[in-house]
C-alpha cells in the first residue's frame, strides 16, 4: 500500500491493538531494532499503546491485532477495530488460533475464576478463548509464538510495495532441511510437530535438537492422523499425543480435531 495507493498522498497509518496475550508479538516490532527506523519512516504508527502514549483516532490503513478474544468487551472492541482498519492483520498464535489460553475451551472457566479470584463476581469472561477470525474477517495472518520478526518485516515491505508477501504455508521440515538440521524424529526418536506445522520460525526448536511444538499452527495440509500413528511408533502415550496437539495452537481446528480423535481412541 504505497502512499499513492491510499489516495491521500501520505504515508500509510498503522495501529497496533492488543487483546488477551503476553505482548510478545508487539515487542517483536519494537525488537526490529535495525529496521525500526526504516519502518517508522515508511509508515506512520499512530496508535501503539505498548510503545507510545500518542493515540490518534482511526480510521487506519493497517491494523495489527495481537491476542485472542476472551471477554464480552473484546468481542465488541474487535468489531469496532475492524470497521476502523482498511487492512486487518492478526499477529501471533493468540490472535490466529486462540493461544495457550484456549486450553480453557476444554474446561469450565467458571471453576478457574472461582479458584483464582477472591471475588469471582467481579470477573466477566467468555467461556472460550477464540481467534480474531472467528469474530471478524481478517485480511492476513502472521503465525507463531511469538511471530517471526522477518515475517513481520516481509509483510510490511510487501504491503508497502503492493506485492504479495512471501509467507510460506508448507511444513517446518522444509526450513529445517534447508538449514541442514538433522531430523530429531528420525535420528533421535524425539516427537516433533514439524511435519504438520507451518514454516516461518526458521525451524528454531529443531535447530536446538528439540522437537517442534507447533506454535506456528497447522501447515496447509496437515496429516495429523499419520503423525499420530508415528508418535505411537515412537512410544508416545495417547495422553502425550493429546498434549502435543493441545499446546500453543490447541484451538486451530486441525490440531483440535487430532487431539480429540486421540482422546476418543
Amino acid at each position, binding site marked *: 500500500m504505497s502512499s499513492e495507493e491510499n489516495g491521500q498522498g501520505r504515508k500509510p497509518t498503522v495501529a497496533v491493538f492488543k487483546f488477551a496475550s503476553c505482548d510478545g508479538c508487539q515487542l517483536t516490532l519494537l525488537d526490529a531494532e535495525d*529496521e525500526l527506523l526504516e519502518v517508522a519512516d515508511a509508515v506512520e504508527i499512530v496508535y501503539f499503546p505498548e510503545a507510545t502514549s500518542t493515540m490518534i483516532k482511526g480510521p487506519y490503513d493497517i491494523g495489527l491485532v495481537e491476542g485472542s478474544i476472551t471477554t464480552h468487551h473484546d468481542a465488541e472492541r474487535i468489531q469496532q477495530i475492524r470497521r476502523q482498519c482498511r487492512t486487518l492483520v492478526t499477529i501471533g498464535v493468540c490472535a490466529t488460533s486462540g493461544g495457550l489460553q484456549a486450553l480453557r475451551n476444554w474446561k469450565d472457566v467458571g471453576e478457574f475464576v472461582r479458584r483464582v479470584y477472591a471475588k469471582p463476581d467481579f470477573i466477566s469472561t467468555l467461556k472460550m478463548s477464540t481467534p480474531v477470525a472467528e469474530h471478524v474477517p481478517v485480511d492476513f495472518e502472521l503465525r507463531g509464538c511469538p511471530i517471526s520478526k522477518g515475517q513481520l518485516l516481509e509483510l510490511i515491505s*510487501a504491503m508497502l510495495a503492493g*506485492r504479495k508477501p512471501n509467507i*510460506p504455508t508448507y511444513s517446518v521440515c522444509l526450513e529445517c532441511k534447508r538449514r541442514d538440521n538433522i531430523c530429531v524424529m*528420525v535420528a533421535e526418536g524425539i516427537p516433533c510437530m514439524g511435519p504438520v506445522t507451518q514454516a516461518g520460525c526458521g525451524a528454531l526448536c529443531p535447530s536446538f535438537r528439540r522437537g517442534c511444538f507447533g506454535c506456528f499452527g497447522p501447515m496447509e495440509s496437515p496429516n495429523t492422523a499419520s503423525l499420530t500413528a508415528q508418535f505411537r511408533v515412537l512410544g508416545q502415550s495417547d495422553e502425550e499425543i493429546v498434549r502435543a496437539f493441545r499446546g500453543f495452537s490447541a484451538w486451530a481446528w486441525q490440531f483440535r480435531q487430532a487431539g480429540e480423535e486421540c482422546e476418543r481412541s
Partner: protein
Amino acid sequence: MVTNLPAIGTQFLLDAAALAPLIPSLERRGYQVAGPTIRGAAIVYDTLHSLDELPAGWTTEHEAGTYRLKKRADDAWFGFTVGPDSWKRYLHPPEARLFAARRDGQSFQIVEENAEAPRWALVGVRSCELAAIAIQDRVLLGEHYGDVIYEARRRGLFLVAVNCTVNSPTCFCVSMHSAPPAEAGFDLALTELVEGPRHRFLAEAGSRQGAEVLAELGPAEATATDRREAEEAIKKAMGGLQRSMRTAGLREMLYEHFEHPRWEDAAARCLCCGNCTMVCPTCFCTTVEDRSAVDGNGAERLRKWDSCFSENFSYIHGGSVRMSAKSRYRQWLTHKLAAWVDQFGSAGCVGCGRCITWCPAGIDLTKEVAALWEPAGPPRNGGHPAPGPR
C-alpha cells in the same frame, strides 16, 4: 615435481596413515575439503581440515523412518552408508541470491551476483552419489538451459569416491545400477580394507588431477590378492542388500497405474512434509522469492529449494493443480521413476535409500513400487486416466 604419475585406472595400495597428506594436498591446490563427520546424532557432510575428523569407528543403522549412530567393532573410517544430507547442498545450494536491484531515480539498476563459486573437494562420495551427481549434471548442465550456479560449482569440483564395503537395510543401489565399485566420474577412488590392526586403502586415480594427488601419497601398486580382497569386500556388501526395486518396464507400469488404489493408501500415510525431496540427491526443484526493502529502494531475488509436496508448488492462475496428498505423492514418485526417463534419459533415483530412512512416517519407496506392480483391479473411469484430483 611429479614425474611418473600413477596410471589412471590402476589400483594402488596405501596404508591408512599414508592418506594423512590427502587433505593438505587438496587444500594446497585451492580446494575447500568436505567429507563425513559426526555432528549431533548423525554422520553428516561438513568441512574437513584433517582425516582425524572422519567418523572412525562409527557406523549407522537405518530403517524406514529411523536412523541411529552405533559404534563399530573396528576403527574403519568409512564403515557407514549415506547420511541425512547429500552433496546436493554443495553443488545446488538450498538458498542462493540470483540478483539484487537498487532504485535509481525513476528507474532501477540490477546488481548481479558475481561471488566466486567455492572450489570443493568432496571426500567419501559413494557410487550412488556419483550417479546422483551425473543425474544432476544431465538436468542442470543441460545443453540449452544450464544452471549457472551449479555449473560454476561443478566445474571446480574434485571428487574422492569411496566404494562401499558395508550396506544399510535401506540401500537398493544394485537395482538402480549405481552400486560400487565406482567406474567413472571421480578423480580418486578409495576402497577401505580393515582387518584387525591392518588398515589399508586401495586407491585408483580417475583423472590426471587425481593421479597427481595420488602420486604425493607414495602409493605402491596393489597385488592381485589386494585387488581380490577389495572386490570381495564390495561384492559381499552388495550381495547383502535387503531392498530392491523391479525396474524393467517400471516407467510403463507407473503410467498405466495412474489410478492404482495404492496411491490413496500411500497418501493416507504421507505427511506432505517434503522431507523426501529435500534429502533426495537428485531432486532439484527450486522456487524464487522476491524481497523488497522497507524503504522501497532495494530488492533482491532469492532461489530456494522447493518441494513438489507443497501446495504452492503447482500453483498456477486460479489455484494449485495438485491439492490432494495422493496427487502430490504420485507426482513425485512418477516423476522420479518414469517421467524423468522421458525428460532426461534415465530415472531420477539412484537407490541411496535416503527418502526411506528420512521419511518421518517411514514410507518405503521400494514397498510402494512393489505394491504398485500388483494389478490395479478393474479400471475406473472407463480406463482413461482421470484428470488430476483437486
